[in-house]
């Protein structure tokens, strides 16, 4: 009898624990809103990104550093397992992630309560916004915006630079960088063209959150979704990119290969649910 009692207690305990971890607090109420935090955490392979100082090796065997990394994330959508989708209002859905600005790596969005299993966003700026009147390009989209010293707008070929990554590599010789600084410069953009179709490097990124932690958004709490962005993928994907062969990639056909590669650099590592608001969870 004693063993049986133990078993009951143990089972109850397990049940209680399971229910707690699955869903703390009441079921989601779509009339209420809570905070969804996306954390953009930059890595290179199995190392944390150390901006400017870290040295890494790409698939082509070339050493490189990263001292500038900025990209636009826009048009964020989240979905629940039962297929309910919330689209962040267009006006509030443009973010410029900058590896040198900590605050920019935490995107906080107010969304209806829910248990979200899918996160979708664009890497880049959609064509509609890219062709809007100048008064509709405010905040991070302001062509004069303080993009931390580096423009994310092409003035000669109207459009945003979606992804900008620069650094040094001994593989870049004097021919590759006539200034002798051994720099590589990747400025990737192209929204498809205004009056003539051209390069479209807008990439949709869709991440399944259910495996590493559904985002349980509840009122007055924050669900913190921790993403890893692996910059090694910029050089390694359907195309193996060599810094010696392609030290400078801007508006040209080769940029499509890099954009195809970096589309896969995002992964979901884990989620911290029911966190206090205004926290920047490390």
């Amino acid at each position, binding site marked *: 009898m004693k063993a049986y009692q133990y078993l009951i207690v143990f089972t109850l305990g397990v049940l209680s624990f399971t229910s707690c971890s699955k869903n703390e607090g009441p079921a989601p109420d779509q009339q209420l809103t809570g905070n969804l935090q996306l954390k953009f955490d930059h890595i290179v392979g199995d190392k944390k990104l150390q901006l400017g100082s870290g040295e890494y090796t790409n698939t082509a065997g070339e050493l490189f550093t990263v001292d500038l990394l900025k990209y636009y994330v826009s048009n964020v959508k989240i979905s629940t397992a039962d297929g309910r989708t919330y689209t962040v209002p267009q006006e509030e859905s443009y973010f410029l992630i900058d590896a040198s600005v900590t605050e920019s790596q935490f995107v906080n969005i107010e969304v209806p309560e829910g248990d979200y299993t899918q996160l979708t966003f664009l890497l880049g700026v959609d064509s509609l916004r890219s*062709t809007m*009147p*100048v*008064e509709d*390009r405010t905040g991070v989209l*302001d*062509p*004069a*915006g*303080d993009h931390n010293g580096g*423009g994310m*707008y092409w*003035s*000669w*070929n*109207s459009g945003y630079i979606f992804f900008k990554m620069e650094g040094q590599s001994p593989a870049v010789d004097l021919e590759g960088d006539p200034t002798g600084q051994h720099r590589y410069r990747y400025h990737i953009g192209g929204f498809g*063209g*205004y*009056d*003539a*179709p*051209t*390069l479209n490097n807008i990439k949709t990124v869709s991440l399944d959150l259910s495996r590493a932690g559904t985002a349980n958004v509840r009122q007055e709490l924050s669900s913190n979704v921790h993403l890893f962005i692996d910059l090694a993928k910029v050089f390694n994907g359907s195309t193996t990119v060599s810094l010696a062969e392609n030290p400078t990639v801007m*508006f*040209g*056909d080769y940029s499509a290969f890099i954009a195809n590669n970096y589309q896969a650099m995002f992964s979901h590592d884990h989620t911290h649910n029911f966190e206090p608001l205004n926290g920047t969870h490390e």
Partner: protein
Amino acid sequence: MAHMNSRRTGRPFAVLCLVLACAVACNKAADVAPDWFGGFKKPANFPEPVYDLNANPINQAGFELGRKLFHDPLLSRNNTISCASCHIQSSAFTHHGHDVSHGIDDKLGTRNAPPIMNLAWSKNFFWDGGVFHLDMLAIAPIENPVEMDESLMNVLAKLRQHTQYPRLFEKAFGSPEISTANFLKALSQFMLMAVSSNAKYDKVMRGEGHTAFTADEQAGYAVYQQHCAGCHAEPLFTDQSFRDNGLGPNPINDQGRYMITLNDTDSYKFKVPSLRNLKYTAPYMHDGRLLTLAAVIAHYRREVRDTPNLDPLLRNPDGSRGIVLSETEKTDLLAFLQTLNDEKFVTDPFLGVGN
């Protein structure tokens, strides 16, 4: 009269008041309702503008602000180069005598400065059409390292610290805040008002003051219609298309429209320029390689190269290339082209430095 009256009644104060009131009224009149500022008017022989004027209504204060900005070297990194440095009114807002322009630190560009003229009707801008809205145009020369080499952010910062500009922005837009949009829209207001529509050709077309073509000009008009209008369409004298006119690549291998579309069939194509104001805008072509109109006509008659994207209009049924013109037709055509020069446009103080 008032003066005498006041002396009689011994009220010099009233005189002072009257004089002051008159002076104030005069100033106000000049500020608010000037006779000379009529706003944007579509010439009777022009189509509807492409630019949406409702989105940026032109007023005198906005125009004057744009004119001041256009002439202000503050827009460049070291405060030496203004828009007007390379877009000179007396040259129909081009850089007379320069194949390509020299900008900041006398660095050379790669293309011939295009005129600031009739831009309200432009679908896109620059020789390659890379910018598709007038409001976004000015960012390109400001940020180009060989033109003004300044960041838009810095330009706005300099304007915000300026003793006059915040007040001028308030007058133009109702707020002293100097935003990207208001800065660019003020420049647009000035550029939109740079309308060239008073050449002899325009007066003939509008039937103004019984102006008529001479016999030579009339014959030249017929030559133009037969041989040139396929690209240089009336009344803007450009159809705004991108074409390869058989010049062949230049030493820096500027591929023109291809750089915007990355489409091989756009290689070495450039925007068809207007034929208006040719008298003031030499040299010609995207890189200013032809110094005279005679050289331009010689190119079309005898020097058109067989390039891969050569415009079909320059291929003749017998396999030859270029435009077949007799000497008489050439002389007549040149006479007609002179009727497209608009002296008012290049001398009008309204579009000058201002005050």
